[in-house]
């Protein structure tokens, strides 16, 4: 997970060996998965929930869901691809709860796409920009947010995103494009 993934095949082998140990009864091996993925999961959940005070609860729920779902992992896809689905499903389910404090707009909104204009972001301070970009991403409709987070935050290829989300690469392409237009417009207003 994350953009700095050196060798995904190697990482997958490592993940599979940990899962094999967990399945043989070595429960403590699961803590290795938690240690390995806690930062990427935290980062991803924070992108979804932005500044929600529920971020830690959601992250804990992600790992609990992973724990419960682990026997169902058959190794038909790479572990990280499967785990991403667990993460986004947890985030989506949480956002749909009525008591959720997610700021997300969610549920496939039909926002107007803005016109592209001269680059309005060049002058912004980076840290401020990062925070505002996170907020703008968190407010995207679910489908667009998934695609954009996986691309811009996680650095996944269109093929990988297509596999995780179960949509065509063409759909991934257009979702990412539309998400960027909306985020750009929000940033332009916020800055």
């Amino acid at each position, binding site marked *: 997970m994350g953009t700095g993934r050196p060798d995904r095949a190697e990482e997958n082998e490592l993940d599979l060996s940990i899962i094999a140990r967990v399945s043989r009864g070595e429960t403590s091996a699961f803590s290795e998965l938690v240690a390995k993925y*806690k*930062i990427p999961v935290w980062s991803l959940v924070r992108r979804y929930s932005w500044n929600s005070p529920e971020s830690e609860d959601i*992250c*804990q729920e992600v790992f609990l869901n992973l724990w419960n779902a682990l026997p169902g992992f058959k190794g038909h896809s790479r572990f990280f691809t499967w785990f991403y689905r667990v993460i986004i499903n947890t985030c989506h389910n949480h956002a749909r709860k009525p008591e959720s404090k997610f700021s997300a707009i969610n549920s496939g909104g039909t926002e107007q796409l803005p016109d*592209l204009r001269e*680059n309005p972001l060049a002058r912004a301070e980076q840290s401020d920009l*990062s925070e505002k970009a996170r907020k703008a991403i968190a407010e995207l409709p679910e489908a667009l947010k998934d695609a954009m987070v996986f691309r811009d935050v996680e650095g996944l290829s269109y093929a990988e995103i297509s596999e995780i989300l179960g949509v065509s690469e063409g759909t991934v*392409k257009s979702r990412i*494009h539309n998400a960027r237009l909306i985020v750009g417009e929000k940033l332009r207003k916020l800055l």
Partner: protein
Amino acid sequence: MFCRFAENNMSALVDGELKGLKKSAVMAHLHSCPACRAKLSYLQSVSAASSLPVMELPPAGFEDRVMAKVSLAGRPDFAQEKAGSPFFSFRFAAAALGLLLMLAAGLAFYRPAAVRVTVPEATIARQTGIDSESMESALNSSAIGFATLANQTGR
């Protein structure tokens, strides 16, 4: 017109996902279109802003709290999942084999039923010139009834 095509492919270009002729066409257009170059720069800056890393770590003790919850949740049933799969495969294979055997037996014993076409006597008499009495006698005298009639009528 071409600006629209270029714009639709710009994010893919930013992401290095545009290949071949499409990429060449968009690049050529960008070379000659300042407005599209500005749009490309805009999308690049949005992508850069969105991919800025989150400089945060999970709160202290996060891992311990997760493991405490995991312990409380109890161990999921790995054994059932593992046993379930081959059992399902065996049942599936057995069912498939059974179906194949039934199909093979059905094909081996299958004999097409004789098609008996009952034509009203009046129609036969009109078409063949054989009156109903002759027909009845022919039918009665012949063990193959319909076959004889069929020979006579050519039907």
